[in-house]
């Protein structure tokens, strides 16, 4: 038997499977189990799983790219809603995708457990008994020797044992077999696939992950309310989050300046101070491939961007807002957009929609950023005002301006206010409504925290990303 043939009939024959399923009383059930655990079904399920995964890479997926999905629905009003109904925008969280891989794993378990048992029994059993006629084997050879029978058998036994065979000695001859390592490898491989699935299920039950944007000079505390995004399995409890604080002292980023791949990221380095209750703060360095490990939680550096520092004065001359405002990058040169809100400005509340350009250039194409680093920072804003709003405590999106109750401020010539500020510059709003000052610039980083790989993981249903440029 050549080593290749060992793989033939990996799965037991139909009759054997039927026998194994004898415990099932109903003939239909028995048939269904035998069919499900057959090699042919497993093969079809495997191929089906491969085909089913493909739309997930070609169509935008809601968990990773909700904007892409919305755009696709707009562009394809006829087919889009149907694809949506069938779960094509969340393939890896869809019922049909789960059905395929669960059936596949049931089929795998139904096949591998009996095979493990058979393997265990074969290991304990001796090699098969001598056949009556050697000629029944497809490969056989014969010969005669003058040596005594016992000597020949002794010699053969030594030879076979040295070659790694298991030998069974009988008075009339000996039988030997090998090839167990290969089946052991097969079984271990398939069992570890089942282990991976169990690990994934465990992770999706008890795992969690959250991301938070932290501006230089500010800190992040590991509590639920401080996360910008958070997802967790049903087994997760907020008290599972260990108490610690990560303060971002400085974030350094370097980009390629040479002619080749100009503007590509070359270095990210976050200097952080980690504080745990009852311990002295520790200064650490966080880099892309070097996450922090704090009390069983890994903190990763995911992305970065700019947070212009602004001061807003209201119509009364009071400071209505002062501090950094997180702007989200929209392209590789970190053209960023954001909203500055001063709800406490009086007599009227103020708001600004802004574009931030780290390396601004003005040419016939208009104003744009030509490099990701901050070489010529410019903050462009328009301005809105309106009567004060009643505080409701209702959360609102900090990246989007809700324009209800607001009117856009106009210049004396009737054109909308459009201020272009460099660091240190101030723009006075028309009619003494106040002013906006672009004080300076800070960087922010996006951090993700989650338990390390071994302790928990997340199944696709809760995999998502949000806008923002990633560190890569």
């Amino acid at each position, binding site marked *: 038997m050549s080593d290749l043939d060992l793989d033939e009939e990996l799965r037991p024959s139909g009759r054997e499977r039927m026998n194994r399923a004898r415990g099932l009383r109903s003939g239909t059930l028995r048939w269904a189990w035998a069919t499900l655990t057959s090699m*042919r079904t497993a093969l079809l399920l*495997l191929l089906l799983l491969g085909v089913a995964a493909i739309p997930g890479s070609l169509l935008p997926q809601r968990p990773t790219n909700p904007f892409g999905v919305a755009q696709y629905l707009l562009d394809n009003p006829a087919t889009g809603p149907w694809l949506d109904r069938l779960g094509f925008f969340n393939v890896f969280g869809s019922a049909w995708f789960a059905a395929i891989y669960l059936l596949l794993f049931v089929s795998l378990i139904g096949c591998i457990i009996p095979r493990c048992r058979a393997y265990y029994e074969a290991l304990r059993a001796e090699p098969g008994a001598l056949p009556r006629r050697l000629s029944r084997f497809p490969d056989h050879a014969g010969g005669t020797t003058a040596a005594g029978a016992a000597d020949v058998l002794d010699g053969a036994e030594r030879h076979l044992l040295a070659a790694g065979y298991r030998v069974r000695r009988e008075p009339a001859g000996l039988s030997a077999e090998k090839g167990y390592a290969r089946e052991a490898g097969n079984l271990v491989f398939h069992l570890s696939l089942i282990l991976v699935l169990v690990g994934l299920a465990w992770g999706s039950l008890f795992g969690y992950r959250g991301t938070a944007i932290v501006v230089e000079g500010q800190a992040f505390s590991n509590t639920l309310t401080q996360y910008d995004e958070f997802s967790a399995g049903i087994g997760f409890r907020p008290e599972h989050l260990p108490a610690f604080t990560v303060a971002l002292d400085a974030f350094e980023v370097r980009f390629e300046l040479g002619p080749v791949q100009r503007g590509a990221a070359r270095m990210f380095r976050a200097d952080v101070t980690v504080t745990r209750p009852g311990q002295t703060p520790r200064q650490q360095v966080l880099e892309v491939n070097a996450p922090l490990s704090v009390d069983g939680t890994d903190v990763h550096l995911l992305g970065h961007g700019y947070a212009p520092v602004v001061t807003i004065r209201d119509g009364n001359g009071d400071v209505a807002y002062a501090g950094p405002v997180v702007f989200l990058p929209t392209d590789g040169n970190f053209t960023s957009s954001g909203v500055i809100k001063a709800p406490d400005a009086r007599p009227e509340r103020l708001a600004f929609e802004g574009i931030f350009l780290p390396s601004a250039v003005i040419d016939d194409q208009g104003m744009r950023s030509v490099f990701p680093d901050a070489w010529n920072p410019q903050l462009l804003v328009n301005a809105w005002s309106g009567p004060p709003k009643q505080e409701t405590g209702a959360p609102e999106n900090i990246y989007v301006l809700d324009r209800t109750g607001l009117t856009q401020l106009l210049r004396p010539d009737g054109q909308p206010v459009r201020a272009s500020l460099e660091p240190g510059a101030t723009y006075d709003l028309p009619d003494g409504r106040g002013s906006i000052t672009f004080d300076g610039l800070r960087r922010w980083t996006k951090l993700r925290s989650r338990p390390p790989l071994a302790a928990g993981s997340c199944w696709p249903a809760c995999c998502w990303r949000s806008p923002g440029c990633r560190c890569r």
Partner: protein
Amino acid sequence: MTAYYSSLAMVTAAVLYLVAVVLHSLEWATARGADPDEPRSRREEQFGRWGLSVTIVAVVVHVLGVVLRGVAAERAPWGNMYEFVTSSLAMAMTIYLIGVFAFGLKGFGLPVTLLASIGLGLAVTVFYVEVAPLMPALHSVWFIIHIIAAALAGAIFNIGGIAAALYLLKVRAERRGRTTGYLARLPASDRLDQISYRMHAFAFPLWTFTVAAGAIWAQYAWGRFWGWDPKETWSLVTWIIYAAYLHARATAGWKGTRAAVLALIGLASFWWNFVGVNLLLSGLHSYAGI
């Protein structure tokens, strides 16, 4: 300067592979209609020997080009699409040469050199980028482990895919009766099937390792080990198709030609994951640098 000599070596190797393609084509052409029972004609043998000799020189120059690229970049030479193709092809061609002398890949000359000349030709014309440092996400020991496994698995998948394609040709010829000419020079279909299986059975665990190592690295770098990034999804699809191939070979009704077709679909999926996903789909694995 080193980078210049590296590029020069790559272009030279691509041209030499093309010469080898021509020589092997001539070998094929002179074998046309030849009686398999008669010994090979002197001309046919000569073309075959020349083709192999030129290939050996090309592989030496090619490997030199890869090494010089690494020296010029001061890191492992697989940081972008160009470098990955050149490294992976160098591995494939080295394996082919070992195979010619160790396990009967002799008839593979034409398709293998065709693959090398097209692959390396595309690399030096379309994929080429200048030497540049790596982006921060690649600053990791996993950069070496994950990508060397991917390149090696890809190299062996390609040779295995060629074996599967030749197997299909040979089976078709055998079914029609007596084979003559080039197809008769190939190993018997059973042997081709065996070569294909052994290649895939070796590359599949490597590919499994590639995906697993990628997941571990992703956990370090991005804080999640699997995010259905297009590259991740297509790596899984490729893995699934090759798993199906290995199982199909042992399933009644699937072994033989159907299994070989699966191997070719697997190879198509591998190529798509490399070329299509890199250039057409946006994701986190955007390292082509083109």
